[in-house]
């Protein structure tokens, strides 16, 4: 059976697994943005925390993904469900590009702009929301782009612990030595990564400060 006829015959399952995949990537991206961006901001404010935070995020990224799933398995509540485990692992993996880019984006804001803003009497919060974050937005989005593309790929491996998603087709195809089944998982995953890459790239350009546009 070739790839196309497999896709057509199993379209409901492929669609279902694609949605699961999207769900895992979407939720973990939300968490990693929700944690990574504030951490990135924090280390611009507390220079002493910069190295510990970056090094920790770096170490997490060097753990092979299957090993990370294994490490997290004993975590209470999280370990109960494969889906939760996958979301936690992907969240952790995506932290580094988000923290690093948030930090770099804010540090990259022209010092004269920050100085003028503070001199005019903007509060710390106003400085962050009106000046630093808008000017760092395109760099932060670039970090998110990297994070999402990594997550789409890693989420296929989450199928190994039973979290579902397109990885299921890939592992099934590997077991059956059937390329069509492997491709039925791999092609939608690749498309998803490309779309995310393109979409976030476009957003990043839209949010670039005027002189860079």
């Amino acid at each position, binding site marked *: 059976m070739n790839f196309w006829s497999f896709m057509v015959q199993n379209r409901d399952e492929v669609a279902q697994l694609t949605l699961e995949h999207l769900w895992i990537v979407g939720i973990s991206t939300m968490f990693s943005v929700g944690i990574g961006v504030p951490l990135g901001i924090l280390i611009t404010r507390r220079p002493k925390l910069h190295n510990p935070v970056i090094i920790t995020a770096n170490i997490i990224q060097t753990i092979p993904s299957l090993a990370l799933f294994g490490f997290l398995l004993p975590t209470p509540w999280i370990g109960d469900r494969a889906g939760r485990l996958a979301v936690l692992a992907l969240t952790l993996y995506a932290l580094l590009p988000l923290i690093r880019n948030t930090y770099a984006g804010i540090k990259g804001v022209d010092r004269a702009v920050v100085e003028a*803003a503070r001199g*005019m*009497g903007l509060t710390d919060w106003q400085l962050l929301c009106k000046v630093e974050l808008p000017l760092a937005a395109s760099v932060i989005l670039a970090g998110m782009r990297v994070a999402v593309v990594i997550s789409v790929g890693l989420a296929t491996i989450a199928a190994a612990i039973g979290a579902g998603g397109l990885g299921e087709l890939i592992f099934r195809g590997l077991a059956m030595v059937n390329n069509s089944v492997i491709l039925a998982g791999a092609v939608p995953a690749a498309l998803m990564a490309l779309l995310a890459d393109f979409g976030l790239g476009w957003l990043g350009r839209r949010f670039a400060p005027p002189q860079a546009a």
Partner: protein
Amino acid sequence: MNGAAVEFRGVSYQVPNGREILHDFNLVVPRGEILVLLGRSGSGKTTALKLVNRLYELSSGDLLVESRAAREWDIIKLRRSIGYAIQEVGLFPHYTVSRNIGVVPAIEQWAPERTEARVQELLKLVGLNSDIGPRYPHQLSGGQRQRVGVARALAADPPILLMDEPFGALDPLTRADLQREFLSLQEQLGKTVLFVTHDLHEALLLGTRIALLEEGRLVSTSSPQEFLHSSDPLVQKYVQAFSAAEQVRGGK
């Protein structure tokens, strides 16, 4: 009330690692004066200015703003009553000219119509055409940018202005224009201005009084006339270096 807008009383400033870069600084700046802080680069002019709006916090001594210790002011309120213009201007690149000028009115929550009217008034005041309002900073010339910077500093009508080499990066012709316009502006507004420069020509032109700094110390304060005829050796050194440059410029 002693009428002083800003007063340094034995102020010193130490950087966190311990080096003292401003020593026992004493200076009274009466209301309505353009006090020029003159000195070579690294002499501590910027530091002295940043102590006033508390971008730096002094290490010892007292600094009074409107007869009240700067440290007793709410820091945000203090900064909003002091206009700040710097050489690099520091306009927000993602804001239009109008929005840049209206930053302080906006955070002070003025009604939009009032802000807009004020922006138009300021554009005129600093010699800019109102059709420049919708543009972005990167679409302006250096002189236009600095005019916008001055307009922004004046937006909420602060009684005190701090200006750190605001015209230092401009070509000589544009600089001369802005200096002239700044003087006539000051005639209308009567602000208290602390103006930093390393250029004696600019100091003589703009200052009602000149304070000379050297290595973090105040060497002398004098009127421009007194400055030129001072017997202080450091002042003389400065004047001589300047007149030598003037002679070259005059082709003699």
